[in-house]
């Protein structure tokens, strides 16, 4: 029976080996298996394609892939900050309508006081924010668990030029961009690690760190209308893997890079990027190279100075 099981009766084979084996065997009906698979992270699903032909077929079905993609989308929030005299108003947006629309659903008082950018990432059961301001040196804030309300501050032991930056956690290491470099920190040990050179020119307007298929990746603005994706390979070299041109409503006059943010996520349909770039928000599929604009339900959204994407 496909995907199910054949119960091993206690007497079968009469081998003692089977006894301990039997205790582990469980039966799950087909439609429940579907529900369980939908709740699994993408990485596990791709792995489980090799369990059996039946599992592989189930995971590769177009309907399943579409459901799974929707589930991935439902886990993404956009945090948008709108500047006020006294600081920022912050709002959270989430996706609906198959990811074609972002709707404001909550104001948040999560972010504290005056600051510039707050890239956030989630790793090792903690939530990490990077914060800089023109008055204080940059800081890393760490929240240990979801229930914890006390942000703990980690000082960065070397002075750095203030820049709007992006942060991402890949394999227990936090990476964030500074001028010309990527800095890294071991999250569990809270130890600062080395610098990584970036593949593009130092003063070029690069932005956007992401995790693509388990590797640190970077989105770079090669020119006003051209974005590039670089992936850091195990050997420590950067490989340019993708290049695309978002058709922008209006070409940006200034090189204000603070408006660009991106996040990557894996689904059974392949890798997707969600990009906020020059007041436009869109999806980009690395597999099909399809670009889908997202409608945002708020005129204010476009005038906001910072928007960033937050993968839960």
């Amino acid at each position, binding site marked *: 029976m496909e995907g199910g099981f054949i119960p091993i009766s206690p007497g079968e084979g009469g081998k003692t080996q089977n006894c301990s084996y039997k205790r582990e065997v469980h039966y799950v009906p087909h439609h429940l298996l579907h529900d369980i698979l939908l709740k699994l992270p993408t*990485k596990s699903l791709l792995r489980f394609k090799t369990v059996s032909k039946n*599992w*592989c077929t189930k995971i590769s079905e177009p309907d399943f892939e579409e459901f799974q993609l929707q589930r991935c989308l439902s886990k993404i929030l956009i945090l948008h900050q709108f500047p006020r005299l006294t600081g920022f108003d912050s709002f959270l947006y989430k996706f609906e309508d198959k990811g074609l629309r972002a709707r404001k659903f909550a104001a948040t008082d999560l972010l504290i006081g005056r600051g510039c950018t707050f890239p956030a990432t989630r790793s090792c059961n903690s939530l990490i924010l990077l914060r800089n301001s023109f008055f204080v040196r940059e800081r890393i804030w760490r929240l240990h668990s979801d229930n914890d309300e006390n942000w703990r501050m980690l000082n960065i032991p070397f002075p750095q030029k203030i820049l709007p930056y992006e942060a991402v956690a890949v394999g227990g290491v936090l990476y964030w961009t500074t001028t010309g470099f990527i800095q890294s920190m071991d999250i569990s040990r809270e130890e600062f690690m080395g610098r990584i050179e970036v593949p593009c020119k130092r003063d070029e307007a690069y932005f956007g760190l992401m995790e693509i298929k388990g590797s640190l990746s970077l989105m770079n603005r090669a020119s006003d209308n051209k974005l590039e994706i670089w992936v850091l390979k195990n050997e420590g070299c950067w490989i340019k893997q993708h290049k695309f041109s978002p058709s922008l409503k209006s070409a940006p006059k200034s090189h204000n890079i603070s408006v660009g943010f991106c996040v990557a996520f894996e689904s059974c349909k392949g890798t997707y990027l969600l990009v906020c770039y020059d007041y436009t928000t869109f999806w980009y599929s690395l597999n099909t190279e399809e670009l889908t604009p997202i409608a945002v339900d708020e005129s204010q959204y476009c005038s906001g100075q910072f928007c960033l994407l937050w993968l839960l």
Partner: protein
Amino acid sequence: MAIMYALKSSDNEIFEVEQKVIEQSETIKKMIEDGAATGEIPLQVSSKTLAKVLEWCKQRQHKTVENENDDNKGKRKKERDEDDDIKEWENKFSDELKADKDVLFDLLLASNYLDLPALLSFLCQLVADMVAGKMPEEIRRMFNIENDFTPEEEKAITAEHGWAFQP
């Protein structure tokens, strides 16, 4: 006075349950509506598993009744406290199930048979959390699935999604 129903487990144990509690099961609700639920209701569920099912239903019922009686004043704070209580209860419930996987999978089948969508979704998540991150071989052993791929086919899939097989 609350209407009571008697449920009979597959090993002939009788459970007396309030209608409101057991009506969460769409299967039993339909039996009641059709007038088919007279006397003892025989179920293809063991007493051990049925006890667990009822534990869940009572907890859910408890929550619904409390919410109906609330007025808006202080509701938010109360809701937050209740959410904490429910979370704590659910954690305990899932810890017990994780410790005894036979009960977990029996309960999964029972909640499917009794049509309890909330419990079913809760259990599916629990199983998903249990299998997430495991290697294919462990999954095959757990569900007694035969690997029907040729080594070449398996290799091809592994190569295609190489990153997913990294620890």
